[in-house]
């Protein structure tokens, strides 16, 4: 286990290094940060002077070297727009994104597991057909359309739910400003969480259903049924447990997609999280922030994949972590 973690750490650092190199070398193509910082009538000479002052005219290696030497001390540069350490800015926005992802995950788990299992048990019922039909629709509609439709229906027409932002936040132990502890905050979470979940839901319903169908045909489930165990126990303990491994694999991979889709969801709902921050940073050519975001997201990927692998080991002890890491 320790060996596995150590290898993952080395891998992670290598990934981070490559990301930093790539994002650093593309930054010249992202546009001119000075243009976003100065008014239209500022002269070229004035802009050159500012560029010089900010070290933007230095050769690539000098700039990159400066970046790396600071990065190893935990300083990923200072955001041009926020004027604060980029890492700090991202960490400030991280809770908003995590709460969004958490809410979406809850929705996915609590909707996809029961409906997937139901569809497997009752393959011919009208409800199954409805669920599968809607999920095809869900797969084919892009997330921002779902989001705009939700806003139109629930905010404008019905007036039930707020259309943007996070609403009232409650401070938890002074560490975390959370939307989960006030009615207003929860109301603000509903639509964005649903929009974000909508991309993954169909996938998971279908995956759980097909894995479950397979499990129901296995000998041990038939045996358990024959033994007269309660149906709920057979379905949810015996059968479901064995469908979870592939679901977890897909889930781990999908976390990446989720990060990508938070960008879209957050920008439609003006959700003050990391994804929205990134999109804005691209618009503003806030290069230090862009680089820092890519590194942080890279880090999240590495951590999540490591966690998924560890969970694997816990669910199915025959998986040998140290060996799979090779």
């Amino acid at each position, binding site marked *: 286990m320790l060996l596995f973690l150590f290898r993952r750490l080395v891998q992670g650092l290598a990934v981070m290094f490559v990301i930093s190199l790539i994002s650093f070398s593309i930054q010249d193509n992202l546009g001119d940060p000075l243009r976003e910082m100065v008014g239209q009538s500022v002269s*070229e000479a004035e802009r050159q002077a500012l560029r010089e002052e900010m070290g933007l005219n230095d050769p690539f290696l000098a700039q990159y070297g400066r970046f790396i030497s600071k990065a190893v001390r935990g300083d990923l540069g200072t955001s041009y727009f926020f004027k604060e350490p980029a890492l700090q800015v991202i960490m400030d926005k991280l809770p908003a994104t995590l709460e969004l992802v958490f809410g979406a995950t809850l929705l996915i788990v609590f909707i996809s597991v029961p409906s997937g299992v139901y569809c497997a048990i009752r393959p011919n019922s009208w409800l199954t057909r409805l669920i599968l039909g809607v999920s095809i629709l869900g797969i084919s509609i892009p997330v921002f359309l779902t989001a705009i439709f939700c806003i139109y229906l629930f905010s404008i027409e019905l007036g039930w739910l707020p259309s*943007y932002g996070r609403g009232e936040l409650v401070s938890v132990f002074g560490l975390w400003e959370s939307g989960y502890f006030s009615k207003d905050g929860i109301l603000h979470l509903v639509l964005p969480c649903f929009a974000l979940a909508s991309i993954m839901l169909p996938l998971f319903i279908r995956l759980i259903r097909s894995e479950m169908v397979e499990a129901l045909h296995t000998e041990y489930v038939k045996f358990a049924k024959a033994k007269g165990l309660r149906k709920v126990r057979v379905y949810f303990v015996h059968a479901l447990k064995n469908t979870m491994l592939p679901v977890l694999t897909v889930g781990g991979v999908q976390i990446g997609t989720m990060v990508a889709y938070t960008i879209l969801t957050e920008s439609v709902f003006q959700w003050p999280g990391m994804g929205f921050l990134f999109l804005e940073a691209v618009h503003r050519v806030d290069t230090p922030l862009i680089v820092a975001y890519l590194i942080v997201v890279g880090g999240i990927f590495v951590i999540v994949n490591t966690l998924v692998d560890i969970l694997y080991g816990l669910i199915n002890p025959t998986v040998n972590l140290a060996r799979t890491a090779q």
Partner: protein
Amino acid sequence: MKKILKSMAGMVLATTLAVGAQAATLKVAYDSDPVSLDPHEQLSGGTLQMSHLLFDPLVRWDKDMNFEPRLATKWERKDDLTMRFHLRQGVKFHSGNDFTAKDVKWTFDRLRSSPDYKAIFEAFAELKVIDDYTIDLVTKKPFPLVLNNATYIFSMDSEFYTGDDDKGQPKDRLVKHAGSFASRNASGTGPYIVERRQQGVRTDYKRFADYWDKQSPGNVETITLTPIKEGPTRVAALLAGDVDFIFPVPPNDHNRIYRSSNSELVVLPGTRVITLQLNQERVEAFKDKRVRQAINYAINNKGIVDRVMRGFATAAGQQGPKGYAGYVEGLKPQYDLEKARQLMKEAGYEKGFSITMLAPNNRYVNDARIAQAAASMLAKINIKVDLKTIPKAQYWPEFDLRAADIMMIGWHSDTEDSANFTEYLTACTDESTGWGQYNSGNYCNHKVDDMIRLANQETDLAKRAAILQDVERTLYEEAAYVPLHWQNLAWGAGKGVQAESVVNVMNFPYLGDLVVTQ
């Protein structure tokens, strides 16, 4: 005793209710946020909108483009170089300090050290303090735009910004890319103070109790400003009643706001002109006046305004909009396809030629679609256009390199003055003066430059307007560039928000004077 208490409670309740009916809160959603609380850090619409809330200028524009006294109560011209301003007395800063002439001088000196504002104040020699409530603005040469520039002098609280902050940096430090004391703290004389600010997420403003302007009808006690980048989200927030005031409203959503019973649309003709520049150094044919004219005749500005902009713009035949000094009533957009073909034939380009064109796709309203429309119109006179549209972040470096044969540029005059358009867009490129910095057409006519130079020293405003009108006529006849249209401005307002009385073509709504009825 009990009875007395009860009636007292009743009285308290009654007064709170009365205040509650008077004071209103306003939730505002703009498409962007000011980058800083420092009014001198960046010259942008967002900064100026903020400055009108937190600070006060010496004078400001009213709805008819006249000057309205603010911190200066009156002004008079002493001689060719000097304009005297009398300052308002009894004005307090948010910090409690008194506002005097030394604050204006301090502000003026700081403005002249700001990279963004330096150019605007180039013409000035100094600001002289005569006494506590009188100042003289002295220019190097006779200069007609003293009052235009005075709209930029938002007095800061010199005492408040003096000394060192907790990081050991001077409080008045002016930097762009690192946080400074002034970028996080503000003390002005304006109608609002900042209560809480999360950059890029939300800013809460609270009405300043000691605000000097007791005549102002404004009754908005607190303002929450949320930047909402996405147009559809901004409109949805208004329609859902989550915000009360939005800018801008994308043309596609105008009807939704019109139709909605609890919101209103306020539209004003804007002052930002959208143009195409024809690069004469890259394309030999563009050196021929007839070809440039043919292009002007081939592009149907009116059609673009009607179809692409859905009527949300004014077709232009010149640079400066109506109301500006140089505006000439007779310069209408030209559109005559037959004449265009005729001119191409005369110039020997009947068979046409191929060129490249570059336009941004997220800078101006419908920019990419305007460029597409223009390109297809040019096809009718056999000019084949290879059009590329790119995001503004990548566009500006390309624009600086003048990297395509036709490029799109929109311009709003920082001084609300006609000469500014020529200086940046159509003057001969001169790096030492900065003239022609945005002239990607490389059009150069020294006669025009001389006229502008003359106009910039002419303090008789009628004479000056005549010169500037001559400039517009010359550029029109020469077909120096292709004027397309002036973008309109549109705000959306919720019920009871009397937005119409505070919005203006410069797009800094005077929210301090806003009246909201419940």
